[in-house]
C-alpha cells in the first residue's frame, strides 16, 4: 500500500503539499512515483516563476514516460530542489522528503483547504485503481 502521510494535503493529480506559514512545498506522492517507475529526469522551473492553480510547472520522466506535474496552489517559486538534477531517483526512494520539487510562496493560502486530506486521497487512489 502506498504511503500517504497524515500531515500533508493532496491533489487529484497526485501532488502533495506541505504547508509552513504561506510557504508550500510540493512534490509527487508515493502512489505517483510507484506508478511512474524509475525516475531518471526531473524538470523544475526557476525561482521567481509564477504559477496559477493547477498549472504545469515541470515534468518527471521515467525510463518509459514523461509526466507533467501541476501546482496544486498558486504562487511564486521561492526555491527549487537542485539535488534532483543529480539524484532524480530521490523521487522514488523518498517522495515526501528528499524528493520534494519546489517551494512556492502562496498567493492565496486559503486554496489549501480545497485540497484532499490524506484519507480522501487514499480513497481517491483506491477508486482510480478500480
Amino acid at each position, binding site marked *: 500500500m502506498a504511503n500517504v502521510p497524515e500531515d500533508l494535503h493532496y491533489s487529484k*493529480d497526485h501532488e502533495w503539499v506541505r504547508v509552513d506559514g504561506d510557504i508550500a512545498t510540493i512534490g509527487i506522492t508515493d502512489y505517483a512515483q510507484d506508478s*511512474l517507475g524509475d525516475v531518471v529526469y526531473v524538470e523544475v522551473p526557476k525561482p521567481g516563476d509564477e504559477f496559477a492553480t493547477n498549472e504545469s510547472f515541470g515534468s518527471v520522466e521515467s525510463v518509459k514516460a514523461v509526466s507533467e506535474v501541476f501546482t496544486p496552489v498558486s504562487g511564486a517559486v521561492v526555491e527549487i530542489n537542485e539535488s534532483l538534477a543529480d539524484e532524480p531517483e530521490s523521487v522514488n526512494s523518498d517522495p515526501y522528503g528528499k524528493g520534494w520539487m519546489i517551494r512556492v510562496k502562496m498567493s492565496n493560502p486559503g486554496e489549501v483547504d480545497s485540497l484532499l486530506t490524506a484519507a480522501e486521497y487514499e480513497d481517491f487512489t483506491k477508486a482510480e485503481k478500480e
Partner: protein
Amino acid sequence: MVIKLTATAPQLKETPLNRLHRDLGGRMVDFGGWDMPVQYPAGTIEEHLRTRNHSGLFDVSHMGEIEVRGADAIPFVNRITSNDVSKLIDGQAQYSALTTPLGTVVDDLLVYRFSQDHLLLVVNAGTTEKDWDWIKSHHAGENLQLKNVSAEYCQIALQGPDAISILQQLTELKLADIKYYHFTTGTVDGVPSIVSRTGYTGEDGFEVYAAADKAEQLWTKMLEVGKAGTDTGVLPCGLAARNTLRLEAGMSLYGHEIDETTTLLEANLGWICKLDKGDFIGRDRLAQQKESGIQRRLVGFEVTERGIARDDQEVVIGDERVGKVTSGSPAPFLKKNIGFAYVPAEQAAVGGEIKIDVRGRLVGAQIVKTPFYKRAR
C-alpha cells in the same frame, strides 16, 4: 501529474504466463492487444542492468509463429522475404523482412530452417494477423502448406552472460555447441523444445520455444535454477527493459524504425536485402533505390545536452524540421539519452550535430555509430 492507468480490457489476449506475471507483481499494460508486463517490482533500470551483467528472463510468447512445410518452402519464403533463405542450413536462423512491392516493410522476422521442406517464421505479436493474411495472399500454387501455429507455442527468452550456465542445468543439449543464430531441438526440463541462440538484447542468450501448456513449468524452472531473488540471479524483465536493451543494441522495432512507409535501405537494413538472390517482392524498387540513392536515412544519436528525446519528436537541423525520432529513451547501461531518427541522407554522417524538439525546447544531440552498445566477446 496525470497517471495513465491502463485498466485491463477483457478482450486483451494473454500469454500462457499471464497468471505468473501477476503473481510476480508485473505491471500489466496493453501491448498491441496483448496484456503484458511492462515491468516487475525491481523496475526497468534494474531489469536492464541485470540482463547486461547476469541474466534476464522475458516472456515473448506473444510473438507469432507461422509454419511453412513442403517442397517449395524455401523458394516461396525466398520470394516474400528480402534475405536469402537458400543460404540457410538446417538448424540455422536468419533475420529478414517481409517486404511490400515498394521495398518497405510488412514486418521483420526470423526464418528458422528445420529442413529443406520445413521453415518456421517468427513474426511480431502486433502484426501476426496482418502477416498471416499477407503470406497466405502470396501463396500462388507453390507446393506447400501454411499454418499459423502462434497459439500452440510459448516463447521464453533467457538473455545475458549467465544465460548459458542457467539453461545448461535444464538440458542435455550441449548449449556451447549452438552457434549464434543457430538452433536445435531437444528437451528442456523434460519438455520438448526448440532452443535457439538468438535474442533481442545485444547479449548472449537463448530463446526457447515449447508447447504453450508447458510455459509455466519452463518459466518457473528457469527462475529457480537461475537463483531468482538473489542479487545476481535471473530477473524477470518486462517490455520496457526489452525495449531499452534492444535500443542500446541498435536493433529496430517494428512500428518505430521500420514500417510500411520505410524502405529497408532507408532503415540501414541493406544487409538483409539480397538483391542478387533472384526475384522477391519489392526487389526492383530496392534495386532502383540503391542505384539512385536514398533521400533519408535512419541514424543513431546521443543527446548532448540536458533532456531526453522521445518517440515522434522532431529533428531540427539549422532552422529546418528535417525528420522525426523513431525511438528515444534513456539508456540505462550506457547512462546516456539515446535514440534513432530519420534525417536527410546528406545530413546523416556520424558526428553531425542535430537538435531534438523536446516539448518546445531544442536539445542538442550528435549522430553516432550504432550499435550504441556492443558486448565484449
